[in-house]
């Protein structure tokens, strides 16, 4: 089960790969993600997403894809995660 990504829901969570560790949820600077009852991530506030790709980069399970992020899955940049959250 993969939640469809669309311009309005730019963050795609691969449900079968997600292990519900909660890292993306905690790291998202805009609190876009939330835990579903099974602990796995869901996109709760897509409209707040700034496409910083932090969730994608920080997901240990390759379960998140940010559509239309600047780096097309090869996110680079200087600052660390803290920077992204700041």
């Amino acid at each position, binding site marked *: 089960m993969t939640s469809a990504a669309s311009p309005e829901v730019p963050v795609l969570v691969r449900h079968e790969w997600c292990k519900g560790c909660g890292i993306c949820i905690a790291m998202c600077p805009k609190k876009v993600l939330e835990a579903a009852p099974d602990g796995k991530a869901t996109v709760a506030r897509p409209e707040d997403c700034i496409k910083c790709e932090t969730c994608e*980069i920080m997901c240990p399970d*390759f379960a998140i894809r940010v559509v239309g992020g600047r780096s097309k*899955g090869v996110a680079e940049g200087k*600052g660390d*995660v803290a920077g*992204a959250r700041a």
Partner: protein
Amino acid sequence: MAVPVDNYLRNQFMPHMWCPGCGHGIVLGAVLRAIGRLDLPKDEVCIVSGIGCASRAPGYLDFNTVHTTHGRALAFATGIKLARPDLHVIVLTGDGDASAIGGNHLIHAARRNMGITTVMFNNSIYGMTNGQYSPMTPKGRYASTAPYGNVERNFDMCELVKAAGGNYVARATTAHARQLSNYVEHAIQTQGFAFVEAVTQCPTYFGRRNKMGTPVDMIEWFRKNSVNAAAAAKLGPEELDGKIVVGEFYRGDAPEYTQVYEEVIKRAKEAAAR
């Protein structure tokens, strides 16, 4: 053209075997993004690992991949690189794999300046065997074989690789995933031996034993306890105690081994012709 990470995964084997919240996946993502930015052709990349949780990475990657014996990844990789100098040989290894049983191969690969990129997934513990202390476990930490607290000091692996002769040495944590990915990119671009230490969380063993909380707590802990190299230079040993120094520590330009060996082949052929 940059290549998305999924392109490098053998999707049929996902989800991978790592525990929920294990930092190994973050480190692997950083590696794959670096490969993607460099747009290395899959057929020209060879990933070699030893044994351990970290060392299970190659099985999930759509390159030429070898999961060898515990600690020996760099020795296998040396044979691959020397026989096929045109391949990008990348070793993914755990801290136990690289610094305990594999320590000798690491310093010798560095000394020879073999053109291999090594990423050491340092979770300060033997994950695969359920949480014994490793040569990277800080003194005082608990582990299943250190029930009274670890009495050994950990290596400063970056210092060691540098002293052994490596051409590139850097360290970052999973809290610095972008930086980490950049370091890996620089490492791959290095002619000669390049080493990146990726400090990562094992919530299952290191975290639980040492009451480090959730994976998120552990990442936060890394972030708070990290100091970058420039800042660290201004701090005394006491202030640095228990801190993780992150940054690029060394770039050398010693010639790469297989290139030097090409010279030997030239000389040998001349000698044979005589």
